[in-house]
C-alpha cells in the first residue's frame, strides 16, 4: 500500500515538473517576435499562379506618432521632421510596414532580379525603407546619402560596420539561414531604426502607406498566411489558411490590435 502511494506521488510530481518545464519553454517562444519559415524551399517555374492580396488595418484609434528629438548633426538630420516609425497608421487606419507572407510554402518561384538587390538608404539620418526583405545568400546594400558618418549595427547577426560619409555604398554580409526580422540601428544617431528579414522564398510582402500587400504567382494550393509587425506582433499561433487556385485571386485582410 505504501509503495503504491509513493509511486502515485512520484507520478504526480513527475507530471507537474514536466508540465512546468514545457510551459516555461513555450513562454520563451512567445516572447520573440519572429517569422515562421519552411524547413526547406525549392524553386520551380510557376505558371498561372494565384494571387493573394489585401489590406492591413488598425483596430481602434491609432496613437499619434511621436516626433523624434534630433540631438545630433542637426544640419543634416534636422532637415526633415522625423517620427517614431514603430507604428505607422495612415488614412483609413491603414498600417504601413507590416510583413505579410506564406509560412509553409516549400516550392514556388524564385526571387526576381529586383528582390535580389535589396537596399536601405540613409538620408537625412533616416533608414528607408523601414522594413526590408532580404533573400538569404544575398548581400544587403546600405547607401549613405548623408554628409555625416553612420554606423550599421545589426546586433542579432553580430554585424556592426562604420559607414563614414566617404563610403557611399556598403554591403552587409549575406546570411545563409533565414532569420529575423532583425533590428538595424545607427548608434551615432540613436533614433535610427530599421528591420531586416532574411527570407528563403519570395512570398513576402511589406504593406505600403495604404496598408496594401500583394503576393503574386503563388502555386495553387493551401497555405498558412502570416503577418508580422514590429509593435503589434504576429499571428504565428493562429495563421490564416488561404486556398489559392490556379490563376485565382484570394482577398485576405487583417485587422491588428495593440498588444496588451
Amino acid at each position, binding site marked *: 500500500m505504501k509503495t503504491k502511494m509513493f509511486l502515485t506521488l*512520484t507520478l504526480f510530481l513527475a507530471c507537474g515538473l514536466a508540465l512546468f518545464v514545457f510551459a516555461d*519553454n513555450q513562454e520563451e517562444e512567445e516572447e520573440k517576435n519572429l517569422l515562421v519559415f519552411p524547413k526547406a524551399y525549392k524553386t520551380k517555374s510557376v505558371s498561372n499562379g494565384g494571387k493573394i492580396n489585401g489590406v492591413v488595418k488598425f483596430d481602434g484609434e491609432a496613437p499619434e506618432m511621436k516626433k523624434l528629438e534630433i540631438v545630433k548633426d542637426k544640419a543634416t538630420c534636422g532637415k526633415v521632421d522625423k517620427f517614431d516609425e514603430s507604428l505607422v497608421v495612415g488614412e483609413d487606419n491603414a498600417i504601413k510596414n507590416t510583413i505579410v507572407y506564406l509560412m509553409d510554402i516549400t516550392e514556388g518561384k524564385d526571387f526576381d532580379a529586383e528582390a535580389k538587390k535589396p537596399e536601405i538608404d540613409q538620408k537625412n539620418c533616416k533608414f528607408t525603407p523601414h522594413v526590408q526583405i532580404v533573400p538569404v545568400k544575398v548581400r544587403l546594400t546600405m547607401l549613405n546619402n548623408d554628409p555625416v558618418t553612420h554606423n550599421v549595427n545589426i546586433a542579432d*547577426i553580430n*554585424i556592426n560596420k*562604420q559607414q563614414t560619409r566617404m563610403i557611399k555604398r556598403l554591403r552587409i554580409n549575406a546570411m545563409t539561414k533565414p532569420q529575423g526580422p532583425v533590428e538595424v540601428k545607427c548608434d551615432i544617431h540613436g*533614433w535610427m531604426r530599421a528591420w531586416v528579414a532574411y527570407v528563403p522564398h519570395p512570398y513576402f510582402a511589406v504593406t505600403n502607406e495604404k496598408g496594401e500587400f500583394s503576393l503574386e504567382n503563388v502555386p495553387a494550393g493551401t497555405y498558412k498566411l502570416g503577418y508580422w509587425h514590429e509593435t503589434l506582433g504576429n499571428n504565428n499561433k493562429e495563421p490564416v489558411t488561404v486556398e489559392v487556385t490556379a490563376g485565382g485571386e484570394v482577398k485576405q485582410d487583417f485587422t491588428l490590435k495593440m498588444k496588451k
Partner: protein
Amino acid sequence: MRITMLTLTSLFILACVVMLPSFGQEAQEGSLIGKQVYEESCAHCHGLEGRGDGSGAENLLPRPRDFTRGLYKIRSTESGQLPTDKDLFDIITVGMPGTSMPGWETSLSTNEREEVVKYIKTFFSGFQENEKPPREVRLADKIPYSKESVEIGKGLYVELGCVECHGNLGRGDGTSAPTLVDAWDFKTWPANLTENWNFRGGSDPEDIFKRFIGGIAGSPMPAFQGDTFYHFGLTPEQSEQYAALEKKVEDGEELTTEEEELAAQYFEINDTAATAALDWAEGLEMSPETLKIYNDAMKVVYEKSWHLANYVKSLSPEKRPEFAIGKHVLRSQYIQGELPALADETWNTLEFSYYPLFGQIVVEPRQFNPSIDSVNVKSFYNDTEVVFLFSWDDKTHNTSEEENEETGKTYQDAIAIQFPVRPPKGPTDPKPYFLWGGKKPVYLWQWKASAPDTLTELTAKGIDKAEEQEAQGNFAVESDYTDGKYSLWVKRSLKTDDKKDLQLDVATFVPIAFSVWDGGNGDIDTKRVISSWYSFVLEPLPSTRRFIYPPLVALLSFGLLVGLRRFIQRRNS
C-alpha cells in the same frame, strides 16, 4: 501486476523529466565541475541560465554578459566570430578592468576555469554548430609605436568617425555618447581613451588593435571589415586620383572619356576588393586570386589599424598615475607674488596629484556604476593666498536638471572638496568620518555647474547633514569644460575671519577628500563618486640655513684637516 506497471510508468516519466532540461540546453557538454563552479561563482551575476540576469545584475553597469546570444566583447577573433576558448579563459583569469568582473586567478584553479569555459559555451548553440574554429586576428606586421605612427593614427581617428563617440581628445565625450545603448538596450558609455587602465580587454597596442579588427560585439563599437575603409583596395595614389574624379562628378563637371574609363577602373578595383572582403567575412571558399586581392587590400587596413592603435595608446599616460599618498601627497608650492591664473602656463611646471574616486555605496541612494575615474589636483601658495586647480573627466556637460527620452533624467555636474574644520593635531589624532563628517564636522567647498563662478562653503556633520555657512568666504573661482574635462580654479586667502573655515599654516598636513557628481550618469545627493581622506600640505620653503651650515661644516672640516696635517708634519720633523 499493477504495481509493476505503475513503477514502470513512473520510472519512464521520471527519466523523461530528467532528460528534459538537457533537450532545452543542447547537449550539456560542460562537466559537472564546470556547472558547479558556474553556479557557485558566476550565476549570481550572469544568471543560472547564462542570461546575464542574476540577482546582482540589476545594480551593475556594464551589465554582466548574457551568454545566450554569442556576443562576446573581448575576443582575439575577427568580426562576427565567436571567441576562442583561450579568450574566455583569459577573461575569467584576469577579469575586466573598469567593470564588476573580477579576475579569478587566485580563487579558481586552472582546471576549474577551464571547465567553466566549457560550461559557459553550452549557453549558446553556435559554439556546437561551428565546424571551423573561429578565425583569429592576424597580429603579424605590427607597426611599432613611434611619433610618426601616432600622427597618422590621429588623422584616421577623425576620418573614421571615432570622434563621434569618443570625442575630440578621446575622453569619451563625443556628441553621440549620451544616447548609446548596447544590444540589450542598456545604457553604455564609450571608453575614455585617456584612462587605458580601465580598458576592458587590456591596454597594449595589440589589445586595442584586436578591438578594431574584431569589434566589441554587442556594443556600439563597430569592427573594421576592410570595405568600411575609404577606397578599399586602391593604392594611396590611385585613391587620390579617384577622389579627384569623384569630386569633379560631384561638382557637376563632365569627365573626359579617358577620365571616365579611369574612374570605372577604380570603381571596379574597389568593388572587387570589397566583394573579396565579404567573401572572407562570410567564410566562403575563395580562389587564390581573390584571396590575394583580399590580402593585399587588407595590408593597408592593418597598417592603418596599427597606426590608430598607437594613437589610442598615446592618449593615456604610460602607466596609471600613482595614488596621492606617501610621496605623492598634494604639496602646494610656494611662489612669490601673484598666483597663476587658470590659463597660466606656470601650472605646467607642476605634476598633478591623482586621487582615484569610487562609487558611494554606504548610504542610499548609492552609485554602483561610477563614471568618473579620478580627480587631479595642483596647488600654489604665496604669503597670503592659496590657489588650487582641480580637474576631472566627465563625458557629459550637464548644467541643469533635465529629463530627456533618449538619455533619461540627468542632473547638474558638481564637485565638493572636503577638509576637517580643524586639522588633526598629529597622525594619531582621528580625522572626521570620511563621508562628510560625523561628530567631528567637516568644512566643504561645493561647486556646481549651474553657477560656474561661485563656490559655496558648507559645514557638515554627516553625508546628509550639510549646511551652508552663514558667512560665505571670499573666493576667486573660474571654471572650464572642454573636450570632456572640467577644470576648476579656486583662490582663497590662507587665513579667514570665520572660525568655521579651515585656516592654513605652512607645513601643517591637512586631510583632504573629494565628492564628484556626474549629472549625466544620474549622480545626485548621495549618489556620487567619492574618495577617502588624503593629505595636503603647504610645502615649506627649503630653509635659507642650507646656505650657511653646509659651507660652514665644509670650512671647519677643511680647517681641521689642514691643522691635522700641520700637526703630523711638525711631529714627524
